[in-house]
């Protein structure tokens, strides 16, 4: 707490310096950060955001009650730092936590942040009419009560090591007064969605669809003004353009470099790259249930041995090297190496093409026709592999996999679908196989939703392949309910071993995020789950500024309420 207050004091001093008589070189506020990105944000409402761009922008505009630390310690509240809540108290039975709202916190329209906003945020997210993808993630929260306008009490169904994390991490707080009169179904299309009002260190200025999103520093923020006075996401229509803008100096930052771009970046002495162990893994997901009739197993993928054979037929190491070069590791399973609970030496199904052929032969899938595709009882060993057309990496993986499996006598039809269409198809379990990617959360518990039985049965669950193994579920549950790190790791290892041997997916890659940035930027640390989390602390030395850093603040919109006006 003391450190926190000190920091705030420092911020206040800096603000003074800005308006005072000190020379501009003495401070490190000001300037513009231009970020190159290859896609528009989907929406700027925290509870509806699904795109990474949307998450970056809303995380700047909106604040959480508390934020996770760089070590991503999710057990209890030790790793968390105060945000909208300046302190919190646990109930004796640990089934509720009372958050005390910082009294200086204000929405960008001037109204104070209150406990009712917190209650509204949780309640609206749980409202099925909104259809928030975050709803399943806060299922452990029963409700929020507001004994007074400054106190929000979270009530939980059960005690768990990560209940604090569940309460604060999943949702930034949104203003009740903006949203309460809009029916949930109309949120996306509302004017409010186009002019988001938050309480974060940056306030929204404009969103020109498919062109740019611009934020400016909220100089009167309760946490102090951030260092960069403007943030601009320069939205390119495709990756190529985003890269070109970064290389040409039109932007300062590019979040995902591909291996083939590294050489090009190296040709520019003013540009730097930095690796960030992001929480992503990619895999070929099999649908274990018949897409036509969920009651039946899938005619091909219902068989565990066959799935294992397909994994054996895949040269994963080469595949990963072809697509990512050095910018990814082979995936271990439904997890990432950044979790302290992940054992990097998990046993894998090895690449063994002859063995894979043997297994397929023994299962009755034999090469009979001239086109060398295996078949059994007249049914060819053929399936459709769906990929989002927007992801070139996944398209590439699919085409490579298609060729590798062809050598085992398996015919793969690659189908490129638009992302929302693909998601819908998977949600309805109406697919054969797909190349999936999970950008997971700081908690390894996310596997419960994506690979556990619970996630398979629930309609909104993310276990699209309907892999169900009670043994796996049990190990995960045991891991999540134990407070002892070593025990957690042991249980997770057992769980991962189980699912790897069941092969409901071919685990492909764990990409290493490589960001590119201009050397004039002074970056703070990058959090694996969100490289952008510390943007308010990034800065640019005064002598490295260029004309765009000194853009006049004329475009800053006036607050909705005149300064000084008190609201009842």
């Amino acid at each position, binding site marked *: 707490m003391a450190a926190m207050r000190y920091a705030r004091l420092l911020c206040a001093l800096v603000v003074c310096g800005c308006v005072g008589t000190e020379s501009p070189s003495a401070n490190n506020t000001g300037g513009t950060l231009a970020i190159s990105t290859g896609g528009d944000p989907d929406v700027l409402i925290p509870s509806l955001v699904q795109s990474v761009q949307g998450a970056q922008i809303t995380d700047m505009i909106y604040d959480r009650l508390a934020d996770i630390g760089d070590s991503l310690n999710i057990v209890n509240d030790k790793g968390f730092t105060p945000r909208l809540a300046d302190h919190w108290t646990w109930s004796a039975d640990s089934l509720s936590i009372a958050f005390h709202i910082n009294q200086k916190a204000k929405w960008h329209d001037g109204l104070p942040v209150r406990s009712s906003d917190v209650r509204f945020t949780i309640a609206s997210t749980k409202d099925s009419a909104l259809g928030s993808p975050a709803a399943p993630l806060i299922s452990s929260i029963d409700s929020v009560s507001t004994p007074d306008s400054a106190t929000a009490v979270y009530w939980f169904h059960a005690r768990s090591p990560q209940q604090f994390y569940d309460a604060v991490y999943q949702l930034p707080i949104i203003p009740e007064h903006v949203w309460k009169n809009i029916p949930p179904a109309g949120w996306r299309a509302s004017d409010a969605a186009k002019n988001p009002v938050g309480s974060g260190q940056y306030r929204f200025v404009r969103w020109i669809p498919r062109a740019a999103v611009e934020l400016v520093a909220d100089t009167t923020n309760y946490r102090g003004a951030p260092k960069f006075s403007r943030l601009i996401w320069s939205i390119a229509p495709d990756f*190529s353009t985003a890269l070109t803008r970064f290389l040409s100096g039109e932007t300062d930052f590019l979040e995902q470099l591909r291996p083939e771009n590294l050489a090009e970046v190296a040709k520019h002495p003013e540009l730097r790259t930095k690796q960030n162990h992001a929480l992503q893994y990619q895999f070929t997901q099999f649908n274990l249930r018949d897409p036509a009739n969920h009651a039946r197993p899938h005619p091909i993928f219902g068989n565990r041995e066959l799935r294992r054979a397909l994994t054996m037929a895949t040269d994963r190491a080469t595949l990963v090297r072809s697509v990512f070069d050095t910018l990814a590791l082979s995936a271990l399973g439904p997890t990432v190496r950044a979790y302290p609970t992940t054992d990097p030496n998990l046993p894998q199904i090895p690449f063994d093409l002859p063995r894979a052929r043997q297994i397929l032969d023994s299962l009755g899938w034999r090469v009979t026709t001239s086109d060398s595709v295996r078949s059994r009882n007249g049914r060819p060993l053929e399936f459709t592999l769906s990929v989002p057309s927007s992801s070139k990496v996944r398209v590439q993986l699919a085409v*490579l996999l298609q060729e590798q499996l062809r050598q085992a006598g398996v015919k793969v039809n*690659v189908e490129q679908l638009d992302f929302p269409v693909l998601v819908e198809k998977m949600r309805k379990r109406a697919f054969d196989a797909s190349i999936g990617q999970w950008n997971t959360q700081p908690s390894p518990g996310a596997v419960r939703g994506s690979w556990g039985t619970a996630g398979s049965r629930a309609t909104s669950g993310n276990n699209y392949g309907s892999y169900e193994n009670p043994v796996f579920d049990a190990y995960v549950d045991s891991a999540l309910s134990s407070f002892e790190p070593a025990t957690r790791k042991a249980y997770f290892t057992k769980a991962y071993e189980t699912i790897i041997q069941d092969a409901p997916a071919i685990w492909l890659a764990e990409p290493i995020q490589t960001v590119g940035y201009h050397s004039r930027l002074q970056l703070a640390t990058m959090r694996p789950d969100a490289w952008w989390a510390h943007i308010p602390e990034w800065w640019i030395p005064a002598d490295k500024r260029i004309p765009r850093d000194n853009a006049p603040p004329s475009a800053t919109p006036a607050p909705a309420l005149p300064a000084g006006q008190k609201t009842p």
Partner: protein
Amino acid sequence: MPWQTQDFAATSGPTWPRESPLALGVRRILRKPSSRVAFFVLGVIVLVGLLAPLVAPYNPAAQPDIVGLKDLPPSLAHPFGTDPYSRDVLSRVIFGARVSLMIGVLATIVSLTVGVAYGAIAGYAGGVLDAVMMRVLDAFLSIPRLLLLIGVLVAWPRLSIGALVLFLGLTGWFGLSRIVRGQVLALKHAEFVTAAQALGASRRRILWRHLLPNLVSPIVVAATLGVAHVIVLEAGLSYLGIGVPQPLASWGNIIQDGADQVATLWWMSLFPGLFMVLTVMTLNILAEALSDAYERR
């Protein structure tokens, strides 16, 4: 007096060519060196497409070494470079010629059939039916073909290649049917048609035996241009991701494969495009020469 009286009309009657209009056209255009070159180049491209398996240095689908041979710029071993899957772009372009040309020809056949039928019926029927048919045609003509195709292809996602050909063909007959109608309209009162009618020929016979042969020249020209147009359209649609289904290589598809990394994989856009321009150019030259040849007749 030795002077004989002669009828003026006798010298101004129709003179019928003794060879088929098509053969005549081909013979005529081959007199021009530019069209000889075009004919030759087109012939080579068609031949290369037909003999793709023999001509292509590599299997267009094979991924020989997805780590070592991917994204290679043009070299002696791979004159057009390789793509992100280590496939040989030259071989893909050669096999792509097959797909692109086949789609061009088949779709044009569809267009010709529909266009001639529609135009002939409208022109021959005349009256209200003709007027209505022409207004409908005007409407179709005022929808840009690409837009119409986008509308159709978005509504019918994941089409087979046969259906794509059909749609390309069904959106390409509007201009031709107007020409055909004009010709039929002009010819239907010609003396030889009247004569045939007087002799009791059926409508169908008149259309088929008397009018159609006179439409050969506009049809041949329209067909040549039509193939060129479809090739470009198909490539455009494939580039937009709604054309030939992957992984089949058509020229547009190869460009689409590299579109995301134009800057680094420029050879994937450049070479198939050059082939396309060459093909379309030769077709345009031939169409121009053909229409010149027929005009001079």
